[in-house]
């Protein structure tokens, strides 16, 4: 059986195809995507949607070619219906609705955040991890329990990726935000060596990054052009933000007494965060699992894989009922495959 998944919640348009042998073997056959990159400023939802519309046929063809399949051979279509940016979501949803109804195949709704977690579990062969999900749009710690992911802690204001993007943009280092797979904050942190004290805000297991961002920006604006000082600020912003994340993950791990720590989402490819989290996990005799870069950022394969899980458990939606959901929390989705946790 072949499942084709479409991702278009934000800046990435992606198509992935997975193969299922009907028993226990799942293989990712292709995972193709293209990112909208703004020339200045952040993501403009309409511009991103226009990008997706233009690139969609090409990405779809490429994904099919890599998997050596034609559309007729696809058995199930999966679509990320949310959460995300409205105009972007509509592009993917329109394509998926069309394909499913034209070829008369089941259409599976997938929550984008759930997909990030499921692909991470799949790659690491994890059963029951404490999940740290960090990306441009999300920052949360979750565990699975009784058919749902339960959020133990999350950001109260802006997500971490968003904070790094805003900071580097406001001090004139971005866009582009990522160069050769490295975020500008990491490049900038290499210029620094001194640690500067900045606000550290952990409320129980929730996090807040806006105070850190404001304090860092105020300081940085006084030192524009001073490469070393800007480097020190980047280094400290990153150090503090990551320590906050590791601390809440550590609390969740100790509280729930689990033995796996999983890092997913776009920021999962950050080496500094990875190292810190791995050190923490080892310290608590737990197994650490990260996500390789092609599955860490937004991608179609994670939608296809999660769509497969949902399809096996009888979840599907009629194309005419497949509405997008800009707001759709990870802890609002009932997931039958988590029933026994």
């Amino acid at each position, binding site marked *: 059986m072949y499942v084709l998944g479409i991702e278009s919640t934000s800046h990435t348009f992606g198509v992935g195809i997975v193969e299922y042998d009907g028993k226990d073997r799942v293989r990712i056959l292709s995972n193709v995507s293209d990112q909208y990159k703004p020339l200045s400023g952040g993501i403009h939802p309409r511009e991103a949607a226009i990008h997706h519309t233009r690139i969609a046929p090409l990405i779809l063809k490429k994904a099919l070619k890599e998997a050596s399949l034609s559309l007729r051979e696809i058995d199930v279509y999966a679509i990320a219906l949310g959460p995300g940016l409205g105009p972007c979501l509509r592009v993917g949803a329109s394509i998926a609705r069309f394909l499913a109804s034209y070829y008369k195949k089941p259409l599976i709704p997938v929550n984008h955040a759930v997909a990030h977690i499921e692909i991470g579990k799949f790659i690491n062969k994890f059963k029951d991890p404490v999940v740290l999900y960090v990306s441009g749009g999300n920052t*949360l710690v979750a565990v699975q329990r009784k058919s749902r992911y*339960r959020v*133990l802690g999350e950001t109260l204001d802006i997500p971490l990726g968003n904070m790094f993007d805003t900071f580097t943009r406001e001090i004139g280092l971005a866009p582009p935000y990522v160069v050769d797979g490295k975020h500008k904050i990491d490049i900038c942190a290499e210029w620094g060596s001194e640690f500067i004290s900045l606000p550290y805000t*952990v409320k*129980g297991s929730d996090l807040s990054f806006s105070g850190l961002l404001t304090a860092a920006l105020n300081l940085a604006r006084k030192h524009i052009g001073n490469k070393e000082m800007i480097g020190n600020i980047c280094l400290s912003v990153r150090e503090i933000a990551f320590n906050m994340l590791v601390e809440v993950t*550590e609390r969740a791990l100790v509280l729930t007494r689990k033995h796996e720590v999983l890092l997913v989402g776009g920021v999962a490819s950050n080496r500094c965060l990875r190292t810190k989290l791995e050190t923490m996990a080892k310290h608590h005799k737990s197994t650490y699992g990260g996500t390789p870069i092609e599955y860490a950022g937004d991608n179609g394969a994670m939608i296809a894989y999660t769509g497969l899980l949902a399809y096996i458990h009888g979840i599907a939606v009629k194309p005419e009922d497949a509405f997008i*959901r800009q707001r759709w*929390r990870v802890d609002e989705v009932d997931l039958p495959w988590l029933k026994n946790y």
Partner: protein
Amino acid sequence: MVKELLEFVEEGAEAVVFTGYMLGNKVIVKQRIRKPYRDQRFDEIFRYTRTKTEAKILAELFLKGLNVPAPLIVDIDKYLIVMEYIEGRKLVDIINETSENKIAKIATELGVQVGKMHSQNIYHGDLTLGNIILSVDGHVYLIDFGLAGYSRDIEEYAIDLHLLRRSLMAIVPEKFEVFFGNFLLGYRNGYPQKYQEVINRLEEIKLRGRYVEERLKKIRGERYSE
């Protein structure tokens, strides 16, 4: 303290915990240890302030008659607190096997304790099932005050309730209603003056998370549509 006389109990998220004896009484020795993932300068500030906070607040709550272990010795330079040993178990470890009747009783007493704590303008900062002990004589004790603090802002009190709610949903979602319902009954008794304000704020906090649909409905009101 002679290390050989100490018995290792557990390593928590922040500290290592031992039991030992002082003048014939069983005590808990809690020491905040260095975190290998944390920058060292940073780490020392952390351990220092959190040890100090915990000691100060334990002492105050104990003197006010709340159910907390009595602090006995504080050595801030070693990031260490020696406190009374409470014979019992953490709620997180027993809640799955506890009957609904017993949960109702525990939750009510917890509500009273937390309400009394808030009425002293003190918040806990990490109120989860891992930081509540049910003693063998059936009473509820609060522990781990490293993130606690003094505040007159009801926001902090509402966050305590929010954290408790979260930890119930993650650990025993099927017992959430009975636990939290009874907790609120107790809380109203422990802190009648600000009860309604705290509850209202608690609802507000829930709407602050990412991608909360209700918030959109609230902002757009009548104009909201799917």
